């Protein structure tokens, strides 16, 4: 099963589960906002989405990952709007029988997300100005 959501506000993490008898691996990835970009201090990032298309692409990508790798579940939340330094902007949980397929699925999912899901970052600088982020990692 997959879940993919775009969230405008703090992310409530998917709960860890103790009752999965066929899943030997539970992987959790939290992407967080760093305090610097290209050596310049920032106070926050503001995430912009193409409303509708972003969630559709995120869902399609999660479904692709679930087909491509033998995982059981992939749940994802991506935040939009202003995200302060240190806060989580991306939360992904994957459950699989063994760690390898879960790790591979996580790498595929995040790498592809950064290529095709129409979400962008604006850097909020210390003087309050807002410019398109130069970060492409």
């Amino acid at each position, binding site marked *: 099963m997959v879940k993919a959501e775009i969230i405008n506000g703090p992310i409530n993490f998917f709960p860890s589960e103790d009752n999965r008898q066929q899943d030997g691996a539970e992987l959790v990835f939290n992407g967080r906002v760093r305090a610097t970009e290209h050596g310049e201090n920032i106070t926050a990032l503001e995430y912009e989405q*193409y409303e509708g*298309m972003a969630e559709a692409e995120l869902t399609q990508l999660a479904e692709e990952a679930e087909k491509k790798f033998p995982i059981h579940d992939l749940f994802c939340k991506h935040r939009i709007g202003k995200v302060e330094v240190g806060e989580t*902007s991306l939360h992904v949980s994957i459950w699989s029988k063994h760690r390898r397929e879960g790790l591979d699925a996580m790498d595929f999912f995040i790498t592809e997300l*950064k290529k095709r899901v129409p979400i*962008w970052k604006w850097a909020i600088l210390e003087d309050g100005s807002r*410019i398109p*982020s130069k970060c492409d990692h």
Partner: protein
Amino acid sequence: MIKIKVKCFSQVKYALGIDNLNLEFESGTSTSQLEKFIRRKANGELDGIPLRIALNQKYIPDETELQDGDEVAFIPPVQGG
């Protein structure tokens, strides 16, 4: 004539200073002609920036003739995560 809505994001929004454009073109106008129009309007600020095209919220791989009522977005490199 056909009416086209262009959605602007990130560097495109920054270059044009606007969220959306409502435009009218001759019938038969293609996505690549629209892209040239947008790049000209940006006065060089989009030079060197690759733009993928989303037509009615789906990526399209090739040049397509626009239809009345289409929504087009020129997608600069995305930055999710």
